[in-house]
């Protein structure tokens, strides 16, 4: 059972693919994913802003309580990422958990986030990986 109907996948594709945040024209703050009104000042006047694809890992957790469909990736690292203008929570990939540290530089990557069985839709989105040096 998935909550990601074809319509929901379609409605959210732009912000999922391109890391598009909403920015309030009243107070200037950005938030991701885009909501209908500014979570800070409540204004309904929002426009779009593309987020930077590089940021810092403020914190993370290594999750062992993985739902069955995600077992191939367990344990899964969940991170709190600061992209400067906005922060978000996302999976951190391509890393052995022992090699992670608070404060490392991370970059956005486009990955499969969930798959609806063998016949349903693939939902893509942005995850983060430690930034390679050089």
């Amino acid at each position: 059972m998935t909550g990601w109907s074809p319509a929901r996948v379609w409605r959210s594709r732009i912000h999922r693919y391109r890391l598009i945040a909403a920015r309030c024209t009243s107070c200037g703050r950005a938030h991701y994913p885009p909501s209908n009104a500014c979570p800070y000042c409540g204004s309904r006047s929002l426009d779009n802003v593309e987020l930077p694809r590089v940021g810092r890992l403020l914190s993370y957790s290594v999750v062992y309580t993985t739902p069955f469909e995600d077992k191939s990736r367990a344990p899964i690292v969940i991170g709190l990422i600061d992209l400067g203008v906005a922060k978000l929570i996302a999976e951190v990939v391509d890393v052995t958990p022992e090699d992670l540290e608070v404060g490392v530089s991370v970059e956005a990557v486009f990955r499969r986030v969930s798959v609806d069985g063998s016949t349903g839709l693939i939902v893509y989105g942005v995850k983060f990986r430690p930034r390679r040096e050089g």
Partner: protein
Amino acid sequence: MAYITGVGLVNVDRHYDKGIRGLAFEAASKALDSSMSSEVDFIVVASSLSYLQEPQLDLASYIASSIGLRGARSIAVESGEASGLAAVMTAKTLVESGVASRVLVVGVDKVSDHPSWRAYKHLSMLYDTESDAFYSIGLGGVAGLLMRLYMHVYKVDRLTLAYWPALMHSNAKKNPYAMLRFSITPEKVLEAPPVAEPLTLLDTFPLGDGAAALVVEGSPSRGALAEIAAVESATGYQSVALSDDPLKIESLEVAYMRLVERTTLESIDVVELHDSFTIMGVLELETLRLAERGKAAEAVAQGYFSVGGGGPVVNPSGGLKARGHPIGATGVYQVAEVALQLAGEFPGLQVEGAKGGLVVSLNAAGSSSYIAYLRSVR
């Protein structure tokens, strides 16, 4: 004015032999019997996972009919993990507005029927499916990263944060309704299997079923256990990532400020708060200024929140960690426990002479927060 005139608790456990209707029936029967009457104008049902797990809609009506209250007015309240306290708020509002004179609040949820990996999936839906829960956060992913952030920002070590679960287990040993009634040491917490590092199994609420019920009246004809002086609430950010200060639970701070506007907190002798994970308990103490920022874990370790420690007694029931956390029902347990404390009738660790108590219930990392002040009537 709103008063609690009856309570009914089911021990938190894996009740394979009872469904949600059976559990609700047991708690409701006890509450109605203890209130000396089966008259109910309104039933308010609090549940959260049932909508996903049964799955069942119009839950309050089906529960009402199945427990002998067909015909009563019914409404279901869902606010994730805070459903129970939200339901108590609803009941208080109903009696104070004059719409009802006797309200039965029933909180019920089952967490142990399905295999744990399915429970993890359902529990992740307590978080925002558009942001955090878009990813595979499992059980504890967000709390785990808050724990690591806390340790990093305040330079508090893992062992200091392990005194909380040890205290909860110690408190629950005397509580006949608690799910886990054995002692643990802080060292054992560190050795336990990881759930969402740095959280271990012993930092995490156990998966158990339960039901709790209250009778709430505006003008009790007989004595009441306690008065519900005020309940307040606030909605919070969709994700902690949106907060400028993720280690403060903004919605709880707002709810608390609203509470003190509504009523005077003459004394806070006992607190039942929402320690779904060790870190949440710590952050709530700091958000409520019962401890300084970065100091709550240390204060717990030093016994400040234990009986005779100088501070309010926190979670004498054993809290979500040891009494248990049947999600939608938990808030009702907490209110029942504080009411019994204030009446001098708590069957477990009793806070002697308690005059006022706080109940804190929130969902996830604070998408909504509820706080209640109860006053003794003795």
